[in-house]
């Protein structure tokens, strides 16, 4: 999937992704010449199909977690499927979670919680953030393309 600014005959470049949380996706592409931006909006089925391929429109900056698609998409997984999935997760120094962020994390099914926790913790550390808040989680979701986490 590519976008061409026909007037300028230039390939438009991915700029930003948004996940409104209703199963749809929005991605913005901009023409490097005239600056015009277009939005790509995918419906839930299209969004799902892309996610099923394990790819992210707009790419991502992090390596996939082990079994990322399975853990992120399976709804009938066992709580105890992963022995270390609920551990502290993530490398190095720990970041703190605000109470609201902890509440939100607690609503994530146990099957995938360990992975979600690790991804957010790594994200915060990489950006030098000391505390994870719901706002940080929202930004991370869009930036990393984590629909449904």
């Amino acid at each position, binding site marked *: 999937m*590519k976008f061409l600014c026909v007037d300028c005959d230039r390939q438009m470049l991915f700029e930003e992704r948004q996940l409104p949380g209703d*199963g749809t996706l929005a991605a913005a592409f901009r023409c490097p010449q005239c600056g015009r931006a277009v939005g790509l909006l995918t419906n839930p*089925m299209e969004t799902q199909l892309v996610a099923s391929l*394990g790819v992210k429109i707009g790419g991502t900056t992090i390596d996939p977690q082990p079994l990322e698609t399975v853990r992120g998409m399976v709804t009938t997984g066992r709580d*105890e499927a992963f022995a270390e999935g609920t551990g502290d997760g993530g490398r190095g120094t720990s970041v703190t979670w605000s109470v609201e962020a902890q509440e939100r994390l607690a609503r994530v099914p146990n099957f995938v919680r360990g992975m979600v926790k690790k991804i957010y913790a790594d994200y915060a550390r990489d950006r030098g953030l000391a505390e994870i808040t719901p706002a940080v989680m929202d930004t991370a979701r869009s930036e990393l393309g984590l629909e449904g986490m």
Partner: protein
Amino acid sequence: MPLNIRTYHELTEPDRSGLPGQIAAQRRRVAARLAGVGRVVALMSGKGGVGKSFATAGLARALARGGWAAGVLDADFNGPTIPALLRIPVTGCTLHENGVEPPVSPEGVRCFSMALLLQDGRPLGFRGPEAESHVWRETLEAAALREFLADVAWGALDRLLVDLPPGIQRFQELAELLPAPPAVLTVTIPTTESRDAVRRAMQFARERGAELLGVVENMVDGPFTGDAGEALAREFGVPLLARIPWHPTQDVWDEVARRMEGVA
């Protein structure tokens, strides 16, 4: 005047989105993980219920007894039976930075299966819009196969057996994911119906460049009659590796393993 729109392939500027690049990276992860695997062997039949999973487990255990490092990837995500057949208890899988540790059978067979991940008795369910699930469900199962290949810490293995569900779809997905097509071992029962279904599967595998290692005929001592094993082996010019009776002993599997490995 129509607009002058260049074609997809004419647009070659690098773009951060790079979906083809992401797919290529997935393939590289599979190839890297399997670099230590001597050979991937898919057990296939084109017919349900003929004993593919039973044979996969019996053969894997025999390989391990014979000193080969063996693993089994249970690629039947909707009816996974391999952990039970290998007598691997379902407990938590250990996660490391570089992958998931596969549980190991008493004989030393490494295994990964959807049965290790699913709640007891629950079918494999995916998050997503139900209405169009036929569009994306098979794609997700192919993604699961890719992750089972790439994200399980298989380590060095002589043989990675892949227990396929009936049909040819999962074989096709496997062949596309691997750097080279898997070798194929086909399982049939003696009947002509099984012969005809398995023939199609073998033809399909051969057309995709897979090496056919041979045929295993199962349930040979009744109630089924026919000579499907012999007929298919002759037709495809491959060995009839074994004729497996009901409730075979260990020796039967040990013999199959040796014949498959050419050390009989």
